């Protein structure tokens, strides 16, 4: 029983991170129909910028409280990533907005390589230790079940950001402009919506969320590395497709479902297949589920809204 609950927690934590990254993919896709493959690498830049900031602060003001330090590092990371998101859109994607769909896709992959290589040049090839400023000493809410404060912070922060994003999109003026642009950006611009600004805003928000995800990811595992964005980026993309790409609620659901499936998959694959498959096949569960969902619901779990784009 402890094992079951523990796997549930494991899945929920990693799923929350996936969900947060998936939001960035899905927002951009919803508005432009572009899969921004560089999104995972924005996460990496966020983590490494935060690391650099912490190092700087530790040198400058050694007495600073960990929470203040983390907050400053997080804010710096968010600002840098937002600038990066803005620049990416302005330099790489805007010119290709009316090009065939393949061109921006390939460009996104190129931007991803560019970011990784730049990070490698700046921060080197080694794994870096990421200061764990929120405590990682495990608590035991139930006998035999362990949760660390940083994991609780991750789930809470993800949930708060998701709710915030939903409110932004559904309740504000810019949110209405985003939805209008998503539906048809030519008509939206005829109605007086500055679609260029809306698209840039979308990239900026997505990049900011990726920065938060990056800092949370690095805080949880205690490491940062120039290639760290690749796998979570790929998983979050899977989560976005699973939930129905272009759909915010779907991205959240997809992220959490993927996290849980992975965790239970790795934990129980041996029992479920009577020892035929072991944990080296843990990833197939996620992709079997993805395959099944796409066969029976080609637009993902909650994906009707964007069927005209898919």
């Amino acid at each position, binding site marked *: 029983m*402890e*094992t079951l609950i*523990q*796997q549930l927690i*494991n*899945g929920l*934590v*990693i799923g929350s991170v996936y969900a947060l990254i998936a939001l960035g993919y899905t927002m951009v896709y919803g508005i432009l129909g572009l899969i921004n493959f560089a999104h995972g690498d924005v996460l990496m830049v966020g983590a490494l910028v935060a690391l650099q900031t912490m190092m700087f602060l530790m040198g400058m003001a050694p007495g600073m409280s960990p929470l203040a330090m983390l907050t400053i590092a997080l804010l710096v990371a968010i600002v840098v990533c937002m600038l990066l998101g803005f620049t990416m859109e302005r330099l790489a994607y805007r010119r290709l907005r009316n090009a065939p769909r393949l061109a921006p896709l390939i460009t996104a992959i190129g931007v991803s390589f560019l970011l990784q290589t730049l990070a490698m040049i700046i921060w080197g090839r*080694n*794994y870096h*230790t990421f200061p*764990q400023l929120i405590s*990682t000493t*495990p608590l*035991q809410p139930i006998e*035999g079940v*362990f949760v*660390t404060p940083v*994991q609780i912070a991750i789930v809470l922060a993800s949930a708060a950001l998701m709710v915030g994003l939903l409110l932004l999109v559904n309740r504000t003026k810019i949110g209405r402009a985003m939805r209008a642009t998503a539906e048809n950006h030519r008509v939206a611009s005829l109605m007086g919506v500055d679609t260029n600004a809306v698209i840039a805003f979308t990239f900026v928000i997505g990049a900011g969320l990726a920065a938060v995800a990056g800092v949370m990811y690095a805080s949880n*595992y*205690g*490491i940062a*590395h120039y*290639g*760290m964005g*690749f*796998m979570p980026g790929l998983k979050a993309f899977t989560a976005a497709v699973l939930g129905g790409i272009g759909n915010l609620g779907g991205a959240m659901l997809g992220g959490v479902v993927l996290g849980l499936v*992975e*965790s*239970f*998959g*790795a*934990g129980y694959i041996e029992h479920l297949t009577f020892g035929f498959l*072991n*944990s*080296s096949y*843990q990833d197939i569960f996620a992709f079997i589920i993805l395959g099944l969902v796409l066969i029976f619901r080609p637009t993902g779990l909650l994906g009707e809204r964007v069927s005209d784009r898919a």
Partner: protein
Amino acid sequence: MQGVTIGGKKVKFELVGEDDQADPRTGTTVAQRLVDAGVKGVIGHLNSGTSIPASRIYDQGGIPQISPASTNPKLTQQNFKGVFRTIANDVQQGGALGSFAVKSLGAKKVAIIDDRTAYGQGLADETDKAVKAAGGQVVAREFTTDKATDFNAILTKIRATNPDVIFFGGMDAQAGPMLRQLKQLGVSAKFLTGDGGCSPEMIKLAGDAVTSTTYCSMAGLPLDKMPGGAAFRDQYKKRFGGEVQLYAPYAYDAAMAVVKAMEKAGSVEPAKYLPELKKISFNGVTGNVAFDDKGDIKEGAVTIYNFKDGNWVPM
């Protein structure tokens, strides 16, 4: 090298150095260059990944090769006549790790994880065998990849089997975070890993999760424990200045093996001295140098290290 007489003639050895840049492709290129230059024997290479492809070229050129550092078992399993090594291979390392877990740490239940690379899997398989041979029980066998950072799911599964020792076959970049996650999951089992995790990097990446119950292994002996270690250090400092490089004593013994085989055969020609090299036995810097029928060093030494005062300390 002075004063060596081979076949009644005084000879002078000449060193032909090449840099393989730890790259398999460059490794084969320089191997071909050495063969073309007509060298009589090769001491090298460092990495298994370059030693193995290069060994085919030396074999075709009929030149004996002795690696002082490559530990992948495959190197000597290719049925090449002239491939040797003076350092323990991963089979010997895994054997030492498994028996250490059961006999020295008193483990009854051992959980084994590997990263599915040739290195990690090979080491884990050998450790698995040795644990069972020593009377221990392998209660879990789990897998990850060499790019993973999240191990919570498999570690939770392992926790349920309540092992005394957890062994990981893989590199420090995974072993460090794994150790942190074990701590976060409240697992207090001892942690054991091979030479991939026996680095300063590992200590850095594991943070406060690396403790006095963390162990790792390295092929070979620390210089202080080698029979000829102290004398070697003195001469090395006099000749080159600076500290002894990790594999230098093994490279020295490898070169001595070639020289002694040539003396016995009375010839510097590979075809003539190779049979002598196969049955050589002498007391080198690192211990007794003698090869088994595959070319691996007999009784290759493996040292277990324990984390103490911020460092790996040999046990």
